[in-house]
């Protein structure tokens, strides 16, 4: 994201990619806001794409809400990477319609007309649909059918996820090392004994 380009790791990765001519495509989803910090307060450079210049990495600024443009540019960048042409940095320009988290309140820091503009005129789903309908490739009936299919699919996945059994408490000791250390094995036994003794009655926050 746009915020992450302020972290040192982004600059080190772009530099390495340039020096090593790495077969990599760096895609930055610039949605304008890193929680409350607008893009203009994140970096003084005019675009994020131009940061590629300093690392010898081609930088592209793409309308991230134009699905076809993104497809074309990512496809070309991947081709270049696979054929030895080196890395590409793509800045996909978009907007964060919602809050950063469920506890975030964007009305504290963000103008509502900006949100309205992006919602009203730049929604990528609406734009793609409008284009396809104009081209005679899409219509209301197919849209409804697709939405119904997607609703069912999401509901199926959610139901399946909720039906997953609770992981056992001891799962917290899995995947730490290839071979568990004696200390970890002892701690696993300790937790097992505690859970058995307390009858799974752990109460949060007490």
């Amino acid at each position, binding site marked *: 994201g746009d*915020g992450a380009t302020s*972290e040192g790791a982004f600059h080190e990765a772009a530099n390495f990619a340039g020096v090593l001519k790495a077969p990599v495509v760096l895609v930055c989803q610039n949605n304008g806001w890193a929680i*409350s*910090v607008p893009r203009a307060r994140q970096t003084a450079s005019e675009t994020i794409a131009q940061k590629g210049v300093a690392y010898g990495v081609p930088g592209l600024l793409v309308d991230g809400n134009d699905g076809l443009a993104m497809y074309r540019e990512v496809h070309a960048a991947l081709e270049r990477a696979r054929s030895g042409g080196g890395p590409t940095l793509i800045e996909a320009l978009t907007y964060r319609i919602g809050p950063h988290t469920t506890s975030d309140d964007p009305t504290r820091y963000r103008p509502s007309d900006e949100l309205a503009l992006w919602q009203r005129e730049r929604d990528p789903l609406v734009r793609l649909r409008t284009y396809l309908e104009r081209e005679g490739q899409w219509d209301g009936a197919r849209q409804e059918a697709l939405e119904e299919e997607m609703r069912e699919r999401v509901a199926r996945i959610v139901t399946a996820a909720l039906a997953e059994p609770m992981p056992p408490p001891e799962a917290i000791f899995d995947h*730490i090392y290839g071979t568990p250390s004696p200390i970890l094995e002892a*701690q696993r036994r300790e*937790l097992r004994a505690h859970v058995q003794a307390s009858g799974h009655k*752990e109460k949060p*926050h*007490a």
Partner: protein
Amino acid sequence: MPSRTLVEAINDALGVALAEDERVLVLGEDVGRNGGVFRATDGLMERFGAERVVDTPLAEAGIIGTSVGLAEYGMRPVAEIQFLGFTYQACAQLMAQAARARWRSNGRFTCPLVVRAPFGVGVRAPELHSEALEAHYVHTPGLKVVAPATPYDAKGLLLAAIDDPDPVMFLEPLRGYRAGRTEVPEGRYTVPLGAARVAREGRDVTVVAWSYMVTVALAAAEALSGEGIEAEVIDLRTLSPFDADAIIASVQKTGRAVVVHEAARTAGLGAEIVATINERALLSLEAPVARVTGYDVPIPPALLEDYYAPTSARVAEAVRSVIGF
């Protein structure tokens, strides 16, 4: 006297410090217009301006590194890192720069900065949002580490940390931000760094804890009281330098001790406390000192975090085993 939550007490302390001392400034991600992701800096930018309450780019190493420079040249920066786990990004600045400025310059430069960050489990956060890293910073010579448990102490210790001539990691209990209220006096007062507090008196066993684990230890002590076991709960408050005298005095009285922390067990601060008790109070001990801690694993995902962090039930179990030794 107003009654405040811990996060309100932090906000109050920052307001006092900013109003009293022009050298104090607050910087971090979302601390300005948004008032901090936990609202610890709510209203401060409006009161003191964007020059002193500064929204920074998203870069923890940049926030701490900038604070190091500000502190070395006479300012009193108070940096906010949104979650202690995000200080992984800034370890070089904290451990290799802030902690060593005084030593490296033979005392010519000091680095009086404060880094505030919430830590610990309890809010069902995703990975890296619940890390308990106090031992990393206690193990870094030159850093002080403070971890208040109550709103009153949070304000008094934060003002003392800002006054302190050395870099202070100020670790706030994420679960304790809005867990309760205490009376918090208006205006300036300080709670000295390096001094523990007896949170509950008792004759049978000493329970040493800090931050939210004090609340957990007190709940265990209440339950044990019903069984005729009176636990003394020591709230360490400052982890580096920690108040060994207070621990030893209590252990000499009770003859038994349990150390509680949320961080992983191996090489945790609990180990240092047990070693100190062994060195200074071995002949007072009636039983080996027990530890109740997190396990040696990354903080697990939300559904399992209750099994990771010490609970009052686990603390009570350990106390009973120490009593029954």
